[in-house]
């Protein structure tokens, strides 16, 4: 997978501007704090700045790593772009169809990634899929930094995302006439796409300004010709920051029809959790941070070529699996969880999260190692998620033994190993089967697209039984969060 670019200097533009123009994300908004816009110099020169020195180690600098957000050059350069090797989860599984004529589209508008699907409304077949990165990413990687940017420069993010989706649709449609488009996404994505004010989401009590479904025509959105007459609907939000992507996930895993309680966890930057069954559903979001996507991890990267995605114990040593099979360049979320789980078992990591014997880092393979702060980031992320699920369970007053199944949505949930996730306490040690269900947001939204007559009642029913719980406000959450930051002790050996 190519992620290699060659650039010539352009008058009046810094290299950073050029890279930005190419769509490289500056996750922290360009203040060098995160190191998330790493690029590797293959040839040419990019002077090392103070900010790069803070964010990167001497070895990394020597190996040619720089930060795109501060890159300048006066000659031609060729670069490896680390961000461009993302693995984006699409979904093409079949759902029930109520046939109608023409073509429709389903869009999963995520904070980081974007999936656009073209669907034949007569058969329900997926005719084409375009995955991409959300172009808003260059203005910050999490929803809060997007909100902050929109408050500073209103409208920029709205027109950017509308334009991008319009172009992606045009590419998929190729002359066919688009009748209907359904979009799902979290509350911030909803507000930014629909042009609603995000100001109420920037402070306590974080109430959306307009969380209902919003309808447009392709023409109103400024989309290309063949999409002009399409009826475009952004599905309604569930409450707080929890959006229609989670509602769609509930449909995909059948929570609204389930007799016994089940759980759904979408472990992205905003960990979204739902818990319940047809009698009632509780949902919440926890700020897990970007660790599961490799963010804020020294050698973290998305699950792309060169990422360690699996770590296993082999005698006294470790065996690391690298995506693409080449030399390891970094580690992604599932590799991080594995590495921590294995290290807890071998004793090189203590339950407190401290690397044993005062070690400064945990070597994995080649240049890739985990630092003590990487483990701390993981502790924060998994602590938030575990505390979120536990509090929803308590709020619902359901005993863990009653929970019939636990569904994991999203890319990370699809690749993380359940045993490792349990070992580090990211997933509870319930006797509950765990099912990775892939991109449930796309599947659930496609189900809605393909059942036009039932759509409204399905959504109304879901919204009626779903209640959003604001965790940040609860002292119990803060308590549970800290408690869940440590790693659980090893499981009792099973008897018999």
């Amino acid at each position: 997978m190519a992620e290699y670019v060659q650039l010539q200097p352009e008058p009046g533009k810094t290299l950073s501007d050029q890279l930005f123009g190419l769509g490289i994300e500056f996750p922290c908004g360009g203040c060098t704090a995160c190191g998330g816009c790493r690029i590797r110099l293959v040839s040419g020169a990019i002077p090392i700045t103070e900010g790069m020195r803070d964010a990167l180690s001497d070895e990394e600098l020597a190996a040619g790593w720089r930060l795109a957000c501060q890159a300048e050059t006066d000659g031609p350069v060729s670069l490896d772009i680390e961000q461009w090797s993302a693995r984006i989860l699409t979904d093409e599984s079949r759902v029930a169809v109520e046939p109608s004529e023409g073509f429709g589209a389903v869009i999963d508008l995520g904070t980081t990634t974007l999936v656009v699907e073209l669907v034949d409304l007569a058969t329900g077949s997926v005719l084409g899929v375009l995955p991409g990165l959300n172009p808003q990413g260059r203005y910050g990687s999490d929803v809060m930094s997007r909100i902050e940017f929109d408050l500073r420069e209103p409208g920029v993010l709205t027109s950017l995302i509308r334009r991008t989706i319009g172009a992606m649709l045009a590419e998929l449609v190729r002359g066919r006439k688009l009748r209907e488009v359904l979009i799902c996404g979290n509350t911030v994505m909803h507000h930014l796409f629909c042009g609603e004010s995000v100001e109420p989401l920037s402070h306590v009590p974080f109430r959306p300004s307009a969380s209902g479904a919003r309808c447009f025509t392709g023409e109103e959105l400024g989309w290309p010709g063949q999409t002009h007459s399409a009826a475009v609907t952004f599905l309604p939000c569930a409450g707080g920051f929890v959006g229609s992507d989670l509602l769609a996930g509930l449909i995909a895993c059948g929570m609204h029809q389930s007799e016994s309680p089940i759980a759904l966890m979408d472990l992205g930057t905003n960990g979204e959790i739902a818990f319940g069954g047809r009698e009632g559903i509780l949902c919440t979001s926890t700020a897990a941070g970007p660790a599961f996507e490799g963010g804020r991890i020294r050698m973290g990267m998305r699950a792309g070529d060169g990422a360690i995605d699996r770590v296993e114990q082999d005698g006294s040593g470790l065996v690391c699996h690298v995506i693409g099979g080449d030399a390891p360049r970094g580690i992604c979320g599932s590799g991080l969880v594995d590495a921590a789980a294995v290290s807890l078992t071998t004793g090189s990591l203590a339950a407190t999260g401290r690397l044993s014997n005062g070690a400064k880092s945990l070597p994995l393979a080649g240049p890739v190692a985990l630092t003590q702060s990487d483990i701390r980031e993981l502790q924060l992320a998994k602590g938030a998620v575990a505390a979120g699920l536990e509090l929803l369970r308590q709020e619902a007053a359901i005993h863990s033994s009653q929970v019939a199944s636990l569904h994991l949505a999203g890319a990370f949930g699809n690749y993380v190993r359940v045993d490792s996730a349990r070992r580090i306490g990211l997933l509870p040690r319930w006797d509950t089967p765990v099912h990775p269900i892939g991109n449930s947001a796309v599947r659930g939204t496609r189900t809605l697209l393909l059942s036009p007559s039932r759509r409204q009642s399905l959504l109304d029913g879901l919204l009626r039984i779903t209640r959003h719980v604001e965790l940040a406000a609860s002292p119990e959450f803060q308590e549970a969060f800290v408690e869940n930051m440590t790693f659980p002790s090893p499981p009792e050996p099973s008897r018999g």
Partner: protein
Amino acid sequence: MADLAQLREAIINGNAKAAAAVVNTAIAEGTQPMALIHDYMIPAMDEVGRRFECEEYFVPELLLSARAMKAALEPLRPLLASSGIQPAGKVLIGTVKGDLHDIGKNLVSSLLEGGGFEVIDLGSDVSPGKFIEAAQSTGADIIALSALLTVTMPSMKYTIEALKEAGLRERVKVIIGGAPVTQQYADQIGADGYSENATLAVALARRLMSGTRQATA
């Protein structure tokens, strides 16, 4: 005989019960409160801070130690008050308006208490008005503002502006902290200090107090 070395260990290990027990025994034996605090408790918290700095300790350990410190201080409070011993300074602390995160704020609050400060915790989502009211009624030396969201950081600025308008800015020092906060931001909004983490906040508060004392001397 109270085993005072055990008091130090209990605080470092976050054992609140053991810490309070040693203090109670020591009080019954007539040990001077200030000797306990200065020779054992503050050095113990300094050690906890050191371990946090070098990443040996993390938030859970820090919180447990802070709780142990609090438990050890509890029985000493009435003695300190009756003997007229002054705290290192009076700090008003709160998470600013719009923000509910209070783990970091609680940590700083406990560590400041451990460092000998009198701390008045206003909780979270605290409006500039509430800070002003409390500053007037308590005569605080320092106001510590916490924010965990980039979008609530401006509340720090508004609080400082409100203090100016109320004519209180010259009387109090303002220190700020929280994940998105930087020294640069502190300079920009005219705060007196910024601390990267909870343990450094205690050192910062001490430094500001010695500055105040010199200035008024």
